[in-house]
């Protein structure tokens, strides 16, 4: 933590959507901003309508809505009118194939135009959209599609062959694979999406979904058990708009770039929905991170608002400030970061090198939208996640002796970060796991699982997770999923997986493995086995989830009931106090 405060010049307060934080926060319930004030009283809301069709027959219908940059630097532009027609075509394709309102459409693809079109087209048709990260291996893909009872998968030929083809027929609900780059003769159940789109209806109407109807199903990891399907309703779009307006300071005149992959919640809420709702122009880059490419995009596309992530920012820092000098970034006027807490040095680096400080903000898959943020008009305390959005009540809570949570009012006291339940984009359940959902709430508070503290000015500071979840490059990884994959290897007896601090990615996945007694353990065989296990895990889990480091132990610390004590592995790895070890039955060797 640092005492540094980055103040904002007075003109910032005049031109920002949020001029005076405290006044805006207090008056929000009676005077919501005009950008969203017509929404709350309507019984039907459709996210795709708000993002796209709403702009038809207005003066922005021919405005550039989405500009796609290919890996080879081709440019493909879509106006709001184009997006409306394309998403209608996609909705009609689903209808023609026999899919109905409420059916589940999954995507697994890189950042391609048809991914964006099918996400919005799915919502338009009243179906539920689930994005999957294309860097997942077959196992995380399959388990999510099983739990989510996927009916349709949109993917590419390459990803289909590599990760899906061998098992998809075993999924009882899955009826169709729509291939973005498919053509000609295909296997049964597979369709060439471009051909279907050509035959689609560009004027297919947007379904009038009820505001509490499920729209999005996002997956997040749990510490134990399988991934959880987080359900969001169409009404969530209210909060997408409010947060884009306040926390990203998005104006219709902005050219906006969200670097998050649509395989994750940020890439959906802020990489597809919110910017279009605001009538802005959004830039999508197909390619992966590359320092000079990114500076070039910021310059050439005249990006004004940029929403990115700590790992990318730290890679830019690593490349040095000199490289930035060759680029004109004068169009840029607001930059923000999300995924994991942004270290103070990175906020200050932004100010020094880019001429703007990064505005960190906080939210989760479950919250559906940004909940706590640093604002364009407000002073930044580098390292802090900022102040709650207007309309959001946040608090630091602790459990009392009766097990009920109570708010802690003392400044800088560590407790669990909680939100008063009932905001528009609050998740409405974990699919088929109502008990797990109930456990997230207590006394009217949603419990985030993040430990934090609040200072005297009301700024929130992240401290750590209350559970064993690992945050790597902004992605939440469940240790159980990694352990389960390694346990499938015939030489492995037990596994404990933890996250260890990493300068670039926040945390790095590390696995501790105990081998079966009959496995030969010479230096040479262990070295070979280490590599084999690494490849074994990568094949199943993909690079985003697989452990970066694997070490061997004779025995792992366990409780009486045989549960591996990840907490203890982590304390020892980091040289921290071991804490309460009264439940330890069998120790590490």
């Amino acid at each position, binding site marked *: 933590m640092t005492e540094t405060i980055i103040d904002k010049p007075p003109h910032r307060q005049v031109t920002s959507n949020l001029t005076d934080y405290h006044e805006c926060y207090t008056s929000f319930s009676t005077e919501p901003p005009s950008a969203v004030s017509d929404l709350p009283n309507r019984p039907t809301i459709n996210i795709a309508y708000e993002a796209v069709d709403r702009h038809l027959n207005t003066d922005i219908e021919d405005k550039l809505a989405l500009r796609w940059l290919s890996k080879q630097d081709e440019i493909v532009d879509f106006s709001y009118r184009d997006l409306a027609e394309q998403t209608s075509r996609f909705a009609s394709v689903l209808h023609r194939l026999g899919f109905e309102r409420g059916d589940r459409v999954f995507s697994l693809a890189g950042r391609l135009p048809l991914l964006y079109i099918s996400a919005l087209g799915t919502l338009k048709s009243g179906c539920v959209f689930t994005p999957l990260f294309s860097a997942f291996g077959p196992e995380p893909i399959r388990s999510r599609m099983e739990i989510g009872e996927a009916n349709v998968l949109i993917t590419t030929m390459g990803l289909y062959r590599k990760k899906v083809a061998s098992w998809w027929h075993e999924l009882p609900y899955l009826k169709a694979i729509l291939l973005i780059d498919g053509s000609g003769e295909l296997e049964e159940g597979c369709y060439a999406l471009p051909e279907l789109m050509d035959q689609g209806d560009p004027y297919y109407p947007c379904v009038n979904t009820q505001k509490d109807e499920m729209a999005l199903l996002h997956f997040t990891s749990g510490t134990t058990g399988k991934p959880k399907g987080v359900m969001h309703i169409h009404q969530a779009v209210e909060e997408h708009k409010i947060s884009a307006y306040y926390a990203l300071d998005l104006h219709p005149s902005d050219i906006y770039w969200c670097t998050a992959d649509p395989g994750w919640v940020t890439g959906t809420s802020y990489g597809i929905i919110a910017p279009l709702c605001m009538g802005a122009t959004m830039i999508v880059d197909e*390619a992966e991170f590359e320092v000079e490419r990114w500076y070039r995009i910021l310059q050439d596309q005249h990006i004004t608002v940029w929403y990115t992530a700590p790992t990318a920012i730290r890679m830019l820092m690593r490349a040095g400030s000199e490289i930035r000098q060759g680029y004109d970034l004068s169009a840029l006027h607001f930059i923000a970061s999300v995924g994991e807490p942004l270290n103070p040095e990175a906020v200050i680096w932004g100010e020094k090198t880019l001429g703007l400080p990064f505005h960190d903000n906080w939210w989760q898959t479950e919250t559906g939208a940004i909940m706590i943020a640093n604002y364009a008009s407000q002073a930044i305390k580098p390292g802090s996640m900022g102040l709650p959005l207007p309309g959001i009540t946040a608090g630091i809570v602790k459990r009392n002796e009766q097990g009920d949570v109570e708010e802690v009012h003392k400044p800088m006291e560590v407790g669990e970060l909680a939100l008063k339940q009932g905001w528009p984009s609050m998740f409405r359940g974990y699919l088929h796991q109502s008990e797990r959902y109930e456990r997230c709430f207590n006394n009217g508070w949603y419990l985030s699982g993040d430990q934090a503290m609040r200072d005297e000015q009301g700024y929130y500071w992240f401290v750590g997770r209350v559970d064993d979840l690992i945050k790597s490059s902004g992605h939440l990884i469940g240790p159980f999923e990694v352990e389960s994959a390694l346990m499938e290897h015939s030489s492995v007896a037990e596994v404990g997986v933890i996250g260890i601090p990493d300068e*670039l990615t926040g945390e790095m996945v590390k696995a501790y493995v105990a081998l079966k007694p009959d496995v030969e353990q010479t230096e040479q065989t262990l070295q070979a086995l280490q590599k084999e296990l690494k490849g074994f895990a990568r094949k199943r889990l993909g690079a985003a989830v697989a452990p*970066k480091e694997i070490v061997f132990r004779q025995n792992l610390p366990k409780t009486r009931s045989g549960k591996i004590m990840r907490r203890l592995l982590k304390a020892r790895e980091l040289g921290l106090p071991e804490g309460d070890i009264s439940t330890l039955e069998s120790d590490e060797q």
Partner: protein
Amino acid sequence: MKNHEIKALLLKAIQEIAPEIELEDIDLEEDLRDECDLDSMDFLNYLIEIKKLTGVKITERDYPNVNTFKKMLAHLEQNIA
């Protein structure tokens, strides 16, 4: 160093990070990060391996010239001492 020797070192560097990859899995003209499923951390570790095995340091400015197997091979051929 001969072309096939450099090629072998390059594959070795990849396999340090992604042991499951064989040469025939890679489209030599496609982005190596996609071909070998390397995330940003894997890619940096792969460049560290390249440095270790060949002595050639790859800077951020070189990235566009080394993003496929074929381009990296050409870059190493030019720069190996």
